[in-house]
């Protein structure tokens, strides 16, 4: 079945440094949809950005990611971390098969802690 790997359980950064959270995936389908969800403490998880287009950069709220089908990757990046970016980040995968839904598969999550 589908799988998503987030290699870092915890990333600790100093404010102002660049952010990179890794996400790789495995799927037998050639048309994957990749998502990043963010979960702030005491809030509900919510969508940060998504993509299904190979080699196209997707941006939202200062974060960006590019789907690379050749390496099965969808890393999340930001040029300069802010204290308010501290949260749990999930990478997720799905695929559209002949118009029918394929369930979303989440990675284990990466906790980002930004320090002053």
């Amino acid at each position, binding site marked *: 079945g589908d799988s998503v790997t*987030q290699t870092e*359980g915890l990333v600790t950064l100093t404010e102002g440094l660049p952010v990179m959270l890794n996400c790789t995936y495995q799927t037998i389908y050639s048309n994957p*949809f990749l998502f990043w*969800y963010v979960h702030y403490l005491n*809030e*509900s*998880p*919510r*969508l940060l950005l*998504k993509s299904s287009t190979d080699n196209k950069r997707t941006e939202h709220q200062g974060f960006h990611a590019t789907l690379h089908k050749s390496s099965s990757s969808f890393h999340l990046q930001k040029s300069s971390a802010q204290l308010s970016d501290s949260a749990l980040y*999930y990478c997720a995968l*799905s695929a*559209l098969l002949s118009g029918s*839904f394929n*369930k*979303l*598969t*989440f*990675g*284990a*999550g990466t906790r980002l802690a930004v320090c002053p």
Partner: protein
Amino acid sequence: EAAVTQSPRNKVTVTGGNVTLSCRQTNSHNYMYWYRQDTGHGLRLIHYSYGAGNLQIGDVPDGYKATRTTQEDFFLLLELASPSQTSLYFCASSDVLETLYFGSGTRLTVL
């Protein structure tokens, strides 16, 4: 924005107890999901549904039942709760491959 409401916010029960978690969405989404969130495992899908009366098995269904009574309402049932089911439970709704909208979560403790 879609609204997903879960109840209760917190629940404590004993081993062998009977628990029902409730979820209601008000954005006419066809798909609803129950996830559990555990450190080191992320969000794991328990059950999901395409519409009223439909139920699909997720990745970690053992010990859980679910029922979708209407398009709006999706329930998760633990008939014989065990300590391993202590977790943070999220309900979510969506249309096909569109954004998942999550509820605020139910923290369940099984003593």
